[in-house]
């Protein structure tokens, strides 16, 4: 095993460990912090793959954005410091079954796929290439999904503003 491989397993172990902690802790704030660490681990994996841009996006969007949002919503709910109620046994069984099913499906796909065919093909993950593909309307371009996603985000933004304004009006009246 090479030095590089040891690093991969270390990162993988870290991601899995923190993810396990995230689902097992019964304090909701701690769960979000473990999730944060897990997501940082994923970013580390991207760094390991030399995909710096993706790694930085992972950190900026998931860690700096989504986890902060989660933490904010935890702050705004009351009694966030209390322990959450223990999950019921049936719930545990069903979620375990669902996870196993997911695992089985994923491994099926993984084992059916043959890796190695495009190993020699250099992956061009430079920013110029990403930018060009993002704004490419033709074959292999991502302009349409990019615009669709931005429309969706805009709709979400407007929707949240509308909801927030409605609550304020009620308070005034």
């Amino acid at each position, binding site marked *: 095993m090479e*030095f590089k491989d040891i690093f991969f397993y270390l990162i993988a172990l870290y991601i899995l460990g923190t993810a396990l902690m995230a689902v097992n802790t019964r*304090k909701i*704030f*701690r769960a979000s*912090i473990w999730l*944060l660490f897990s997501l*940082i681990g994923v970013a580390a994996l991207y760094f390991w793959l030399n995909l*710096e*841009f993706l790694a*930085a*996006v992972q*950190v*900026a969007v998931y*860690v*700096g*954005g989504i*986890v*902060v949002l989660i*933490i*904010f919503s935890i*702050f705004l709910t009351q009694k*966030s*410091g209390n322990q959450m109620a223990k999950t019921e046994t049936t719930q545990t069984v069903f979620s375990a079954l669902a996870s196993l099913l997911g695992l089985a499906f994923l491994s099926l796909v993984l084992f059916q796929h043959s890796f190695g065919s495009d190993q020699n093909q250099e992956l061009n993950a*430079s*920013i110029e290439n990403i930018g060009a593909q993002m704004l490419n309307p033709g074959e292999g371009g991502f302009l349409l999904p990019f615009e669709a996603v931005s429309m969706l985000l805009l709709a979400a933004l407007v929707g949240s503003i509308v909801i927030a304004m409605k609550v304020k009006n009620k308070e005034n009246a």
Partner: protein
Amino acid sequence: MLRLENISSFIHTSLSNHLSETSVLLLEMTIIALAAITLFALLGLILVLMERKVSAWIQIRLGPNRVGPKGIFQTAADTLKLVLKEGFVPDGADKFLYKLAPFVVMIIAMILLAPIAFAKNFAIWDLNIGVFFITAISSVSVIGILMAGWASNNQYSLLGAMRSGAQIISYEISAGMAILSIVVLTGSLQISDIVASQSNGWWLFKGHIPALIAFVIYIIAVTAETNRAPFDMAEAESELTGGFHTEYAGMRFALFFLAEYINIFIVCAIGATLFLGGWMPFHIGNWEAFNHIMDYIPSSIWFLSKTFFLIFVIMWFRWTFPRLRIDQLLQLEWKYLLPISLFNLLLITLIAIKGWHF
């Protein structure tokens, strides 16, 4: 004259002559880690002393003047005191997160140091997404503050954490826009490229008025992002007694304190790199003799003097302005800075496409 870039290459070549590639890598990593930690300690000591001296100067006082000549060992003595202080955990606090928070803030400040070019060919990791890496990682530092505020089990801390969360997230956008405007002009995210693009003049001068606007917005936004007065809502000692670090004492408090100064250094270093040419010496058009003299000054001196000038400006803000209110703070960002910086970015893009810059 001793130049930093020569030292690094000298170490690399002398190590490579004797050892295998892996061990050279490991040894260099260790050296860099030690150097970074030393730099941290030094920066902390210098910046805290500088803050105290600058504030004393502005406030017609003497400042620290007992420990060592002109008080230069004052911060070292303070650190010693803080190390010896008992670090206790308040009742009802989330112990694990309470203890973790200062380290999160500190580690993030350390990671941010990686892509900064201290001198010619002298950076820890000149990765190809340099400035984006910094924007991304610095967005995580808010987590440490939120953690500290929540885990302290204190309403003041919680309010401070909420404030700083809202504040940092908002001002990150403006800071990002300001950084982006230089990236648009340069066409690269890599710090070495950005510095190289300023060999014939700093972007502050080359980019006309939009660059100047971007620079001003950048300085305002990073002042807010590092929780410095007049935007120190997270601490706001007269309102929230100490904000998110109300309950912290001893070395844990010192880590927050240190991280604040390291963050100031980093944002000022980025500001100097983006707008003031990083380690590039100051040149004036065709004045060959003048340019030669400027070239003779080591690049590290250029970089540090620009950075410390910006640090001084930020300290000057702190000791002059009253604090904004939280809603005014957010209003400033969302109603003024963000629209201005968006429009400014458009202008800069136009300049970059048309090649109107020098």
